[in-house]
């Protein structure tokens, strides 16, 4: 049959956006986007809508100890939970210990905060922090105070609830907004109660990817009020990495099949104060003991920085480093799967790079006055 319909013509320069993998995406019927490859960079990092424009009658308070001034995943989830629970006339006010407003940028707003109060963090100072929270509790009269249930926040949250004699729920893993909270009690049961004023939220309580953002009004940075501490902080130290279980280490130097120079790697770990990990191939080869294996059948690690030398990044290995914040890869192959996961990739021979790093660190050490090393 002869088709008399006009031939559908495809515009070869239809608008497109660049996806996260760097590929061009053409969406039919879409008129936004770019025709110019050079302008296409971030066509889709468009502003998210604001959750609520106010005016705010009520308040919900979130208290977070930042991780070196940044929000980690637990903090983001707690903020997201508070923002999702908040009604349109409820403002999410976040107190960030150890953060600075200018360094933080709009990270808190993107995580859902409407008002941000950055406070210095002098280390262990429960009484002074409690004094600040008591002051905020009175001034702002929040409906709810949320803490992530981990580390310093877990400690402060429990102290706050007991000091103010407020009902609280810890390890909350499920919130039915406006109704009840749920936690896992020993024996595999759920414990349920109606929402108390103080909430300590466990990981995965909320999905941190929000379709909205908070107003993110920054308040001037604050110093803690003066209060008599009953506990003296005598300072902290970090354990030598060699004595530390891999799961506990903060910095890990990990070796894969590409590393032949294990002595150099061990020396590097020693000078950096890092723990040593390995991929399964390196362990099977007998270069490392089984307890060093990272991955699905090895250990799951939570380091802030994970240095992967000569590791291809098989899924089984990547499973073990899911929780690592910064991954740095050294590999000869710029298309190895680890490169997708890594925040920084150096395309280089491991042996050469390890040697260079060792030399660099040794040179810095000898150039420095000796007094600095005796901390």
């Amino acid at each position: 049959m002869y088709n008399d319909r006009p031939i559908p013509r495809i515009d070869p320069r239809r608008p497109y956006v660049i996806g996260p993998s760097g590929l061009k995406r053409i969406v039919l019927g879409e008129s936004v986007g770019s025709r110019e490859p050079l302008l296409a960079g971030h066509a889709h990092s468009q502003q998210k809508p604001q959750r609520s424009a106010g005016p705010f009658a009520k308040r919900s308070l979130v208290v977070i100890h930042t991780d070196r001034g940044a929000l980690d995943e637990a903090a983001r989830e707690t903020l997201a939970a508070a923002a999702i629970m908040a009604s349109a006339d409820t403002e999410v006010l976040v107190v960030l210990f150890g953060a600075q407003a200018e360094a933080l940028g709009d990270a808190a707003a993107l995580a859902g905060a409407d008002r941000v109060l950055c406070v210095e963090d002098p280390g262990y100072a429960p009484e002074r922090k409690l004094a600040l929270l008591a002051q905020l509790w009175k001034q702002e009269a929040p409906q709810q105070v949320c803490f992530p249930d981990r580390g310093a926040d877990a400690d402060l949250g429990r102290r706050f609830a007991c000091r103010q004699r407020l009902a609280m729920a810890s390890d909350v893993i499920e919130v039915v907004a406006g109704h009840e909270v749920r936690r896992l009690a020993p024996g595999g049961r759920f414990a349920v109660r109606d929402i108390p004023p103080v909430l300590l939220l466990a990981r995965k309580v909320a999905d941190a990817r929000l379709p909205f953002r908070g107003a993110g009004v920054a308040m001037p940075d604050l110093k803690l009020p003066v209060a008599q501490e009953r506990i003296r902080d005598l300072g902290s130290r970090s354990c030598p990495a060699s004595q530390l279980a891999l799961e506990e280490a903060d910095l890990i130097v990990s070796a894969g099949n590409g590393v032949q120079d294990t002595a150099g790697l061990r020396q590097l770990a020693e000078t950096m104060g890092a723990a040593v990990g390995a991929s399964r191939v390196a362990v099977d080869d007998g270069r490392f003991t089984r307890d060093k294996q990272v991955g699905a059948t090895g250990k799951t690690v939570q380091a802030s920085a994970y240095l992967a030398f000569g590791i291809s990044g098989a899924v089984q290995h990547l499973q073990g480093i899911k929780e690592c914040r910064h991954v740095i890869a050294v590999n000869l192959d710029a298309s190895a799967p680890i490169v997708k996961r890594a925040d920084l990739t150096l395309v280089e021979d491991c042996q050469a790079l390890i040697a260079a790093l060792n030399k660099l660190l040794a040179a810095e050490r000898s150039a420095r006055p000796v007094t600095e090393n005796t901390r």
Partner: protein
Amino acid sequence: MSTPMLKVAVLVAPAIHPVSGRPCTHPADSAALALGLKLAGSSERLTVLYAGAAADEALAGYLAQGASCVTVLPTAEDADIAPLLAAQIADAELVLCGTRAGGGQGSALLPYQLAEELEAPLLPDALSVAIKGGSVEIEQFLPKGQRRSLAAALPVVVTVHERATPALPYSHARKEAGKVRRLMPVAAKAAEWRYEPGGRRARPLVAASRASGHERMLGAIAADDGKTTGLVVKQGDPVEKAQVLLDYLRDHQLVDF
């Protein structure tokens, strides 16, 4: 070593075994007991206390681990026991708890409540406890291999981390010799928790999205949540790349040298 006549109270609670569901000892409470035995020196100055509805057999593990007598304050299950326990241990100078119980609520809250009731400072997550004159010094467990030393004047409440001290080995002879002493039952206010069978996954809070289907599709294919590949450095010799690596670590404050 330790000051003479230091009165120590150790709080223990039976845990629910995660597999068998039977009552057993909890590693953190066992560690607290082992520390208490060491610091008190003699058993007269050590009180091992439990409040609740558990049977004597559930506490036998602690007898086997060195407690010569466990004092039980019988209350209803799930009662608000903090004020009752606080009244019992009001004269103790050092109160040792586990960081978290393996039974009941297991919310790591009781030591904080006790500290507030007793108006004593609370030293959390101790790996070691030392008595120096009238004060207590602990080494606190922090994640990522950090340790912190904290000190406070007696009386104090200390929560003991399960890695602090290995418990005394289980001894059947000690278990037979030890006794469980029951006090008069007391009534207490019930806690506000209800129980539901577990076994399902918890549902996370997810923000309701007002976006249209088309917008969500766009978000899924081009949104910023999909992690983009980081920086890839190909140029330069090994020394330059080593410098890039060090600079990255320092810029993100991941190392302190």
